[in-house]
């Protein structure tokens, strides 16, 4: 399988670059990367799902807003997400289905807390294959 994402070194925080055959897939892989930083996703099921819809000024902002919405859902509803389907992605709108499982403290060891996705080093690239990049505040 093609590489879904890689971690970008940063002194205080953690960045990721995610790839896909199209932008929808790259976005989905960025969300996958976010939850991979937090937990071993092999231990997480996908029986629960949420539809997440975001509007923003542009695609870069959509990416940050979407990831932050997932962090919010993780904190408020205690859901770990592992599978993402971006059904619609325009310049200003994103519709997704996100599958995961409620945290089970006995099975899920949280490796790191992510405070937020930031706008620093933010990139959404469509040329030469789709690639997105985002830095998380840890």
């Amino acid at each position, binding site marked *: 399988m093609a590489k879904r994402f890689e*971690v970008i*070194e*940063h*002194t*205080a*925080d*953690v960045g990721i670059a995610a790839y896909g055959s199209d932008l929808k897939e790259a976005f989905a892989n960025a969300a996958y990367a976010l939850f991979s930083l*937090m937990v071993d996703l092999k231990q997480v099921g996908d029986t629960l799902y949420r539809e997440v819809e975001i509007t923003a*000024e542009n695609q870069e*902002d959509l990416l940050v*807003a979407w990831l*932050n919405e997932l*962090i*919010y859902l*993780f*904190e*408020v509803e*205690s859901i770990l997400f592992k599978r993402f389907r971006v059904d619609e992605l325009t310049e200003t709108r994103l519709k997704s289905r996100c599958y995961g499982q409620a*945290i089970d403290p006995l099975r899920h*060891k*949280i*490796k*790191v*807390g992510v*405070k*937020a996705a*930031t*706008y*620093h*080093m*933010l990139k959404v690239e469509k040329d030469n294959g789709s690639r997105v990049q985002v*830095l998380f*505040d*840890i």
Partner: protein
Amino acid sequence: MARWEGTLKKIDDYRWEISQSYKAGMRVPGLIYADEPMLEHIREDQTPEQVANVACLPGIVSHSLAMPDIHWGYGFPIGGVAATRVEDGVISPGGVGYDINCGVRLLRTDLMVEEVSPKIEELVSELYRSIPSGVGSQGKLRLDQKEIDKVLLKGARWAVEKGYGEARDLEVTEANGTMPGGDPQCVSTKAKQRGGPQLGTLGAGNHFLEVQVVEEIYEPAIASAMGIERVGQVLLLIHTGSRGLGHQVCDDYVRTMGAAVQRYGISLPDRQLACAPVKSQEGKDYFAAMVCAANYAWANRQCITHWARESFIRVLGRSLRQLGLEMIYDVAHNIAKMEEYQVDGKRLSLCIHRKGATRAFPAGHPEVPEIYAEIGQPVLIPGDMGRYSYVLVGTERAMEDSFGSTCHGAGRVQSRSAAKRSLRGADVARGLAQRGITVKAGSMSSLAEEASEAYKDVAAVVEVAHRAGISRKVAKARPLGVVKG
């Protein structure tokens, strides 16, 4: 990440300037507090570029400042201080950061290390049990929206009124634990939903509780005024912030300000510097929300203090009075404050952004608690978990040179993944145990990420702040027991 190749002009042994001509758009020069060996580390990534970028903020005065613990952040560097004019300058949520009012609280005891050492395992376990920690940890308090709004307005005072702590605690908390100017209506429902279950929790990352032992006293008279009497005395340090509520407030307003930047015709070198005029509606709303988050953080540290005291009482079998477990001080290190300073002979109202920087007011300043009127405001500098922490005191020089600010900690030199590659959590725990430090952590990988090797030596950081005169060393403490999320 590429090395920074710009020019740093030496002002003196501890101050280095980035000229205003370094890049287009800078409104003032940059100024980094560091000694020569530290500069090498600082140049290894784009930290100085971030200092220069902050210098582009509309209304910034004097310098874009970097404290000696500076390291690479997102937008603003961590360890940065930026003063902008209230009249025509901007306020930036990124200049405070996601963990609004992340800060440090230090308590003293009448206990000596010999009394605590035999019980340290039990004490650390009890602290770990009674104070929820870890990612997304939820507390014992359940607050409805109405009660949250009270916390956002009253801060630590809310906690004391509910029986968590004593009125005296408030006297020795920055802003008395209740910063004025908050408006809960400016805080989103999402932020309140995140904050509701998390009040009274430590969180994860670099947040910790530490039982410490005084190792050295540099200024006995000043230390004594703070209740630090002798080497071997036991202290308790609490390091945490505003949890998910603060993160959400920052995220909400970075988004708002992103749009405001265009509306006000502000051009910025980095989107994470998003800002709006202090006097604009967006600026006022952010400040009112930030104040609420800051108050939440003070309430959080106040609740934790109460449970920590209960833990000491249970394990040591003594009353609070016998323990002498009293607060030395509580100080924010991620916050924006409206303060007045003399700049080029003029008295100016300024918005002081401190992001990873500590307020350091001198003796006699009206905001310094009465009991410290003659010594100045205590400045609390936690090191990393394997090494030592410092107590400093504010100076007049800080008022003249650094907008009443100094460093806040050690400052990272190694990325989290690099730390994890080179160290294993279990080895870190063993290494700490060999040095007589008991650790209880929710996650082994967080232990490796926060290992000493990933940080600058806090002693070197404090030495620069001391020699540059922006604060004075008072005492040093080493850890005995650590609780981490």
